[in-house]
């Protein structure tokens, strides 16, 4: 016999790996099932997170801290408030900047509806490149997001009819967030006229002085809402939470997360109960040799953990691929979002693996603890 290097290194890890390798097909099926379940949940949660974070970044890049809208509107896009309120808002201490925005949905000649944003002149996003200069949009001019362009087969240079008015697309708009790639942009006064909303806007975006304490922010919100009973102020975070699309995806993500986690626990539990049942005699031999119940149970828990951890890693890959596919699909629907994977997601995956291993090991451990050494050895 060769007295080799690894021969004398038989430890718990080797024992566990050996045990798993004894039933390769079962291990592979368990790992793949859990990986798919975790990956599916991660895709859903990742999609909603990615959309929300891309939106957050978009608002952050515009320096939007608060949004002022009409109270009592379940769909914020239907909010209409007086543009004249801007003068009152400017007088409130702590407000650095205010921007009005009108949003409406209009029908194209193709009968496709499209969101149109109306920004007042002077807003950075109303500028486009004409020749070598960056100039403001003029009356009758439009910018188009890339997704709106590809969905509606419209390009800069095209003329379109909106509510019987002729408009010319002069350039692309480089959207910074999920939705704006799918919309058209025009001057605020053009859109007000087009939608019979003279003097009305959908939101005011409010930028606050940097470094304000929570108490000051609350005071500003109170001051704004005191201007008129029809006003409601939300933070960007609250606004995103109200967003129907992200709320739907988030809710669906949570349901899938819960059901898939439960499914994973049932899969690993079933597999390990089966394994323990088959290894009753083997575990009884260990007990007869003086292995404590805790030591034998630890072996079962560690085997469950190795399978769950492997599934979590694989589930991470499945989830990431699923997320890319989901976001690419959403993009074809006019919803642009970057995939955002963070340390939080990795921690979430690790925590899932630990939870699945712990809960999944409970029943097999119960079976292990109830093995009668004498009976098992007689089998």
């Amino acid at each position, binding site marked *: 016999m060769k007295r080799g290097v690894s021969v004398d290194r038989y430890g718990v890890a080797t024992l566990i790996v*050996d045990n798993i390798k004894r039933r390769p097909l079962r291990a592979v099926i368990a790992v793949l099932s859990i990986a798919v379940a975790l990956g599916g949940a991660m895709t859903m949660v990742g999609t909603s997170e990615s959309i929300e974070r891309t939106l957050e970044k978009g608002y952050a890049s515009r320096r939007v801290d608060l949004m002022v809208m009409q109270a009592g509107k379940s769909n914020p896009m239907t909010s209409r408030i007086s543009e004249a309120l801007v003068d009152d808002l400017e007088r409130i201490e702590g407000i650095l900047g205010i921007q009005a925005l009108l949003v409406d949905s209009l029908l194209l000649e193709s009968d496709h509806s499209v969101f149109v944003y109306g920004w007042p002149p002077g807003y950075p996003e109303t500028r486009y490149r004409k020749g070598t200069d960056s100039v403001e949009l003029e009356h009758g001019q439009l910018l188009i997001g890339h997704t709106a362009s590809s969905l509606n087969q419209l390009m800069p240079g095209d003329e379109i009819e909106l509510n019987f008015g002729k408009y010319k697309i002069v350039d692309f708009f480089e959207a910074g967030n999920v939705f704006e790639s799918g919309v058209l942009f025009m001057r605020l006064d053009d859109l007000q006229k087009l939608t019979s909303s003279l003097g009305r806007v959908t939101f005011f975006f409010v930028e606050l002085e940097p470094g304000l304490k929570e108490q000051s922010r609350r005071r500003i919100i109170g001051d704004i809402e005191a201007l008129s009973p029809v006003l409601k102020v939300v933070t960007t975070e609250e606004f995103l939470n109200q967003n129907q699309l992200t709320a739907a995806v988030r809710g669906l993500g949570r349901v899938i997360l819960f059901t898939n986690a439960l499914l994973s626990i049932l899969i690993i539990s079933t597999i390990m109960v089966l394994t323990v049942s088959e290894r009753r005699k083997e575990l009884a*031999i260990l007990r*007869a*040799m*003086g*292995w*404590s119940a805790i*030591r034998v149970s630890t072996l079962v828990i560690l085997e469950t953990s190795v399978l769950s951890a492997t599934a979590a890693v694989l589930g991470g890959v499945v989830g990431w691929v699923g997320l890319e596919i989901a976001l690419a699909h959403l993009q074809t629907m006019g919803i642009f979002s970057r995939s955002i994977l963070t340390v939080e997601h990795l921690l979430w995956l690790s925590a899932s693996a630990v939870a699945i291993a712990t809960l999944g090991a409970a029943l097999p451990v119960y079976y292990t603890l109830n093995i009668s*050494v004498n009976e098992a*050895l007689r089998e």
Partner: protein
Amino acid sequence: MRPLVDLQNVCRTFGGVITALDDVSLSVSEGETIALLGPSGSGKSTLLSLIAGFETASSGTLTVAGKSIHDWHPDEFRLRIVGFLFQQFHLLEHLSAVRNVELSLFPTCRQPRQRFLKSRQLLEDVGLGERLLVQATDLSGGERQRVAFCRSIANQPRLLLADEPTGNLDRASSQRLLSTLSDHMLRHQSTLIVATHDDDVARICSRVIRLQDGKVVDS
């Protein structure tokens, strides 16, 4: 001298109708080698299972190493006090000879290398030095029982219990195992209780206890 094993009026019944042991009283001193002789169904295996703590007596008292068996922690008891040699060997079939012995050392020795060295030494002592890495299923019956023997004494128990250890062996293998057992008992002054049909096994023991229908008929 205090006995290592002491049974007083021990009964063991199954379902209240089958009496496997009936009012058994006996004492075994440290260093004694005892053969339990008797026909099948006489209660030999049940008696060993009780002493090993695998089963509990229906009535009577059983004291091992100075304590009632109920006062021992089962794991500590199996680890430090008793070693058990089974007729069917009960090796882990997918593991090699040395791994089977190493497993019994997991609770008492943390270092994998120390476990390996000790297991190798034990197997070399019983003539299996060249068979360390052979899987249990590829060992002969005699070799398997010698591996099982090494496993049962790896943690140096004070009492070795053997249930028909030669029951599944041919004559040559039986002789070899008996010689190994006698050598070990002589060298370590260990206590052995062996249940057997085999007169050759009884001959290596210092005392013979005969059982019939669950009763001690001759000690």
